[in-house]
């Protein structure tokens, strides 16, 4: 039997890709994973601070969503649904296990140099010089550690707001929280982060001055 012509999914909105997934198009499922694997994985990774665990939880998130794709209603954003499940999966895990603060240089569970490398954060992607790289790494380390020290509720709000660029209303819908609570959480998270990053900012200010 001749094959069907390939679908051009790249430029389709989420709702259309979901409709194709509901028709059993394997390529549509994969396109949804391609679009959201990084944001979902990043959110969970920053919540649980363990790459292997984050990957397992991100897989659980996608499996839950894609197995129930027939229940998706197009009046809601797919990303909100995905982030809601991802956040719930991460929060559930954190409730079961006390979170340990880890260094950007690798998971505290890493036993070997390879494991440390595998679990370290890559925050220096496109820096031009060694000095830039060092400064970015220092700031990246500091902010990742500061995020890790936030309450999980603050953490998911601040990540959705500033890393994923969601509006307050979207975050409220995603996390099932009142709009005022979301604003309060984000305000407090910013305040705590600002205090935690004081030493980095003052260090940078000294260099500039």
């Amino acid at each position, binding site marked *: *039997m*001749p*094959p*069907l*012509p390939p679908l051009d999914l790249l430029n389709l909105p989420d709702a259309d890709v979901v409709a194709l997934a509901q*028709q*059993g*198009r*394997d390529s549509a*499922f*994969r396109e949804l*994973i*391609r679009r959201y*694997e*990084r*944001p979902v*994985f*990043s959110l969970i*990774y920053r919540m649980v601070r363990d790459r292997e665990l*984050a*990957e397992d939880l*991100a*897989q659980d998130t*996608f*499996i*839950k969503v*894609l*197995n129930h794709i027939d229940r998706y209603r197009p009046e809601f954003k797919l990303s909100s649904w995905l982030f809601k499940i991802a956040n719930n999966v991460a929060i559930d895990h954190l409730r079961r296990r006390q979170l340990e603060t880890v260094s950007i240089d690798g998971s505290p569970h890493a036993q070997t140099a390879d494991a440390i490398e595998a679990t370290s*954060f*890559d*925050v220096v*992607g496109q820096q031009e010089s060694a000095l830039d790289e060092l400064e970015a790494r220092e*700031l*990246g380390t500091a*902010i*990742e550690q500061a995020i890790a020290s936030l309450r999980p509720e603050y953490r998911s709000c*601040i990540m959705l707001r*500033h*890393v994923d*660029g969601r509006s307050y209303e979207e975050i409220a819908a995603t996390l099932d929280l009142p709009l005022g609570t979301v*604003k309060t959480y*984000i*305000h407090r998270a*910013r*305040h705590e*982060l*600002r205090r935690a*990053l004081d030493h980095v*900012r003052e260090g940078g200010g000294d260099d500039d001055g």
Partner: protein
Amino acid sequence: MNHRHLLPDEIDLLLDDEVGFGVAPLKAHIRDCMECRTRVDEARFVVDALEDLPHFAPSHTFADQVMAQVPVFVPWHVTARDTVLRWLPQSRAARIAVGALAASAASIITLAILWIATQTDVVTVASGAAGDEVRGLVYEAGRQVLSTVFGDQMFAIIQRTGTVGVGAALIGLVAAAAGSIAGLRALAAASSRHRA
């Protein structure tokens, strides 16, 4: 100059780049007030650092691992449509040609059916003969099925009860088969949900 310093909510408005009518006075205030400008700059430093954070990538096998646990269900109407689409030519001209050919064939068949319908005698005789043949086949098939399921002796008893008895036995058999199929489907669905 407004000498009231900015409230935390007002600093948040500036950080979120709000553009409402109340924002202009706040912007004007921080131009003149060093203390508030410093507070906004400090908060902006955090927001910029957050917005510069990268997205992490999962392993390159992530999609395959997810898809291995997602059963893709293709509805029957999509399968049917795909089957048709696979055989349809890609170019518009070829599709028009195929459509014209199909329309011609459908017209000829329709005309043939209409012509046969006008031949009343032929249709009556042919349908009567076909009806007898079909009845005979159905009766024989039913007899074979009941005889196989209930055994020859039980079938003989059922046969003695007449048409009503045979009909009741057949209905009971169909109901039992339908119940079994529904039970198996429910079992399969529950198993699938459990795996998911």
